């Protein structure tokens, strides 16, 4: 997944496994933190829902079809959609589903394929959630993060640096959600009182992107 080379299918699968595993473990580890973020103007279960869902993913880790990277991600998407309740099940499930579907259409995965897949995931989330940039959701962290990744990749940056750029963008975008008024999700019911604290989903995106950037150098290489 470096910006120039198009790695072998088994290399793609290893990368997909690594990324999903980091996401799953990070969500499980941050259960309480993510719940606390959702408590401010939400209902406090965001971390709980993600943790229960990704626990299932980790528990059945060996059972997912590993024909190729996209198949693997599609199976993960199904597991997330089936096991995560609340808003996050459909949102995250749809995101993974679209990523998997887009990658399936591009068997030899390049950095720009990854960007296309992520953008397609975001489009799926927007459609599913009837939401967009500016609504104070995880979309407000995802979009700038993908933009940053794309810029870095286009400039030929190494994957680890592209990920770092992505994480930095996600973090500042997540922090910027503090100033926004929520227009979607439970937080929206509190109207102007949602201003002043960041969106839980956006912060989670920042945490995940940072963790990916941090752990990328330690990924198993094929």
């Amino acid at each position, binding site marked *: 997944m470096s910006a120039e080379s198009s790695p072998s299918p088994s290399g793609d699968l290893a990368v997909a496994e690594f990324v999903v595993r980091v996401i799953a473990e990070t969500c499980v580890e941050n259960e309480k933190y993510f719940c606390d973020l959702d408590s401010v103007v*939400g209902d406090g*279960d965001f971390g709980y829902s993600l943790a229960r869902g990704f626990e299932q993913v980790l528990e059945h880790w060996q059972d997912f079809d590993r024909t190729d990277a996209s198949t693997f991600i599609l199976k993960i998407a199904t597991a997330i959609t089936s096991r995560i309740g609340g808003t996050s099940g459909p949102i995250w499930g749809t995101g993974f589903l679209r990523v998997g579907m887009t990658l399936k259409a591009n068997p030899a995965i390049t950095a720009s394929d990854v960007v296309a897949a992520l953008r397609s995931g975001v489009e799926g989330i927007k459609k599913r959630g009837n939401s967009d940039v500016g609504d104070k959701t995880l979309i407000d962290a995802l979009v700038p993060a993908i933009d940053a990744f794309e810029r870095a990749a286009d400039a030929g940056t190494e994957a680890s640096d592209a990920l770092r750029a992505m994480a930095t963008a996600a973090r500042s975008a997540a922090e910027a959600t503090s100033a926004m008024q929520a227009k979607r999700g439970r937080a929206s019911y*509190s109207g102007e009182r949602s201003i002043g604290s960041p969106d839980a989903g956006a912060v989670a995106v920042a945490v995940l992107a940072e963790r990916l950037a941090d752990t990328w150098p330690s990924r198993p290489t094929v």
Partner: protein
Amino acid sequence: MKKFINDPKQFVPEMLHGLALANPDTLRYVPEYNLIHRADAPNDNKVTIIQGSGSGHEPAHVMTVGRGMLDAACPGDVFAAPPMDYIYETTKLMSSPKGVLLLVNNYTGDRMAFDMAQELSEADGVKVRTLFIDDDVSVQDSTYTVGRRGVAGNFFVMKAVGAASENGADLDELMRIGEKVNSVTRTMGLALTACTPPSKGSPLFELGEDEIEVGVGIHGEPGRRRDKWAPANELVEELLEAVVSDLPFASGDRVALMINGLGGTPISELYLLYGIAHDKLTERGITVGRNYVGEYCTSLDMAGASLTLVKLDDEIEALLAAPAEIAIRVF
């Protein structure tokens, strides 16, 4: 957090286990999908009525499964819409040739999960319609939300379509009835204390010793505003005014009045509120044709109450008066 609980993750399954054990003749429990269904469901001669939504609102909805009410409920974890899977599998297991009616309180998570499940079930050839309930008047500015929330008023939609489906009404007829009842139902609630979700282990928000949350949501979402505690007469006036002016209800109307406890408020206080609300409606020239006092749609252990009015006509009143049987019983 002091609750009767073993493991927060097992809270919902253990509650459902107890519910099933307490109702061996009438209810069945399918643990994989948090599914509680009538022992005699699905019934080929009846539209199946299913409600999902998060847990923590008991008796809604698992304890309102029974003759004349729901055929099945497949709740999610506390305050979390059920995973799409639960709804899809429940719909398949409970499908009837007359079709399946999904009742959904209007929240983002619930809407999405039910939409997805409906798509998948329809692809499997099941006839499915979805009815959204949004009776909460506390959410004022709907350009900033996905619209009003569904709260305690969902009881009336459930009761009406439940009664009609026992009489053999088809899916279109149930949609008509459900939408009609929802369109004349209005609710507003307030909290004296926050609730404590088992997995969080501490209250969702902090209310001072003399503070209340007006227009609170049943998931502990903050409401219209925080205010000072006031005597019951004033609080009822505020709830009633919000509800009456919204439809609006007018002198000469005949209504059903519900005082719903949010989980931690004793029934003595609910009857006290009922008396005040009844008197105030009478002053406004509005007649209480049916009344409901107790816990219908709660928010875990939250101390608080909501007030619901339903504008009655002959059709609605007959459906509300029809006999029904559910798990919550005294004898």
